[in-house]
């Protein structure tokens, strides 16, 4: 119905490498789709800001890498890919876990170290997975997820039915990881064997605290695959991300081999919680991005441009989502911590010693009275 959909101009969102033609310059979006995108992105934003607060309140310990500022990338990828497509990413994985089958309480519960967390509270911030939703997780070692992603692409090709488009695999990594040696290795393999693989560089302009012009001799990451074609996308415009990723999925799923995608994005927070994020860039830069390129504000303006939502309605929605996130956090706080025995489960499929199902058989706790031996 024309009254509930609207055409948006996304020209100028792309730069191409080894492509003759790129994604379309306009995109048609329904009201329902755009409202959904807005709610998803705003939930992500609120969740990450809540993480920040909870971390500062010492309810979350350890490492914590936040995604706010980059929401359009994850949201756009999810909208363009199919649920069967496999997704693997770096440690900055909270919102991906959210989109691939997780709830706010499960993500934050994982950060709290609760048994109800997405991985039973065993991993925390960098380690979230969802088997049912083909989300192969956050990975703590910079770049290490990329060869694993290439293996996922290989499995997709191996399992594909002849003549049908393949499910694809996507590995997300940052500009800081983009020069990791093992990425070159696996990209070469993917190109050699025409694997349905999307190498997606989320270029937020800083590898931890070092800007791209100080850590990389090439700043056109979408050209980094050399012979592998590349696409640079305005990663602050979710509609451009969606169309760009549809283009990428179609290209690699048809058996043409891999693609490099560079998302031009920005993170508002520091690299991790130990990084205030202001020592290597100035506040003006962050403020400028917030007021001119913010991905959530962009969606809000699109909603109004198409008359899908009024400013009032947007405010109401934001209020509702803020409450929902807070409710989810309260829920997660009430969950129990994992049982002690979880420390030694899930290491091997089945212990090869006479003790069944667990390894090691005896666990010495700091308080000896709480030490235990697994039942045989």
């Amino acid at each position: 119905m024309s009254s509930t959909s609207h055409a948006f101009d996304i020209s100028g969102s792309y730069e191409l490498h080894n492509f003759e033609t790129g994604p379309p310059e306009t995109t048609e979006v329904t009201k329902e789709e755009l409202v959904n995108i807005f709610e998803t992105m705003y939930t992500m934003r609120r969740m990450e800001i809540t993480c920040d607060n909870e971390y500062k309140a010492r309810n979350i310990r350890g490492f914590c890498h936040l995604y706010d500022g980059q929401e359009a990338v994850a949201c756009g990828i999810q909208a363009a890919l199919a649920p069967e497509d496999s997704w693997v990413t770096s440690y900055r994985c909270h919102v991906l876990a959210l989109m691939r089958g997780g709830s706010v309480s499960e993500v934050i519960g994982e950060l709290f170290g609760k048994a109800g967390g997405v991985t039973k509270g065993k991993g925390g911030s960098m380690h979230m997975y969802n088997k049912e939703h083909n989300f192969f997780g956050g990975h703590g070692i910079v770049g290490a997820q990329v060869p694993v992603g290439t293996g996922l692409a290989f499995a997709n090709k191996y399992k594909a039915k002849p003549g049908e488009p393949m499910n694809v695999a996507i590995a997300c990594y940052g500009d800081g990881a983009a020069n990791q040696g093992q990425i070159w290795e696996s990209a070469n393999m993917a190109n050699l064997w025409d694997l349905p693989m999307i190498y997606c560089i989320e270029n937020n302009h800083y590898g931890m605290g070092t800007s791209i012009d100080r850590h990389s001799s090439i700043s056109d990451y979408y050209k980094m695959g050399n012979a592998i074609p590349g696409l640079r996308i305005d990663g602050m415009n979710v509609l451009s991300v969606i169309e760009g990723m549809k283009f990428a999925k179609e290209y690699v799923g048809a058996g043409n081999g891999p693609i490099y995608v560079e998302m031009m994005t920005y993170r508002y927070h520091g690299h991790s919680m130990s990084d205030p994020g202001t020592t290597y860039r100035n506040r003006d830069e962050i403020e400028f991005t917030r007021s001119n390129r913010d991905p959530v504000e962009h969606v809000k303006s699109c909603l109004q441009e198409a008359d899908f939502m009024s400013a009032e309605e947007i405010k109401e929605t934001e209020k509702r989502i803020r409450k929902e996130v807070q409710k989810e956090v309260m829920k997660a706080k009430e969950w129990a911590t994992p049982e002690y025995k979880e420390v030694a489960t899930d290491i091997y499929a089945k212990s090869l010693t006479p003790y069944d199902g667990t390894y090691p058989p005896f666990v010495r706790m700091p308080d000896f009275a709480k030490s235990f031996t697994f039942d045989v």
Partner: protein
Amino acid sequence: MNLFTAINNALFIALETDPSSIVFGQDVAFGGVFRCTQNLQEEFGPDRVFNTPLNESSIAGLAIGYASMSGGTAIGEMQFADYMFPAFDQIVNEMSKFRYRSGNQWNCGGVTLRSPCGAVGHGGHYHSQSPEAFLTHCPGIVVVMPRGPKAAKGLLLSSIRSKDPVIFLEPKALYRAAVEDVPVEDYEVELGKAEVMREGSDVTVLGWGGHLRVLEQACDLSKENDGISCELIDLQTLTPWDIECVTNSVNKTGKLIVSHEAPVTSGFGAEVVATVQAECFYSLESPIQRVCGLDTPFPLVFEKYYIPDKLKNYEAIKTVVESANNNN
């Protein structure tokens, strides 16, 4: 069969019985450096048996991704165990922890990485090492090292079918040298179980892999010269290792020699010694001896000095027995 044909035979059976199994690595399509994969591509096609570029890290990563998604069986080859170090991040941080990190949602139990290890007489620094202790230090993976063709075939099939990722270290000196009667049918040797190769009463001699040939000779020598009865044990699986078998033997003999080719410091022998002294303290009649490689890079011209050969082991056996007798 010799060792490489037994391995080849096991791979053939794995490809034949499991349609999800794939075999890959550097030059495996042509049979590989040691011919272990010869004729497999001709038989099962280039989709299932294929060459990779020279990228150990990505060979491991590819195996992990493939196995974790579809529950498929990925049999990768690291051309030499010495080349495993570029893949160490994938092995230690990805492969071994995938099950634990994901709260058992995922695992890459279908991964088996085969790799030739050990001294070969002229291998020098980077074609001779035995990296087992680096790997046994990492919970989540199983480390296996067979001593000969018959055990190798059964252990490899168990490893490939194991629900945990396995590093399978093949003593390269034995690929052609060791010849045994190997059953042609499909059979498995249980992982995590040691094998008592020879029963004896005076001293327990423990080793694994190709080094057992040396230990057999040392036991012979002790028997002939000194009438010492050695109980010789092949550990076969290094993690998780068969503590029960070893401690039963030490409780009987009261003495233990552990011998491996890898350098002595932080070698797997140290782990064995620590456990045995805790479990068998009151049965021990003399200090446990480790007879191992020197704490040096693997030397080319000095290989015969480096190696814990039959004479070094013979001396150690004699010493522990004499020491026990003197104290009685």
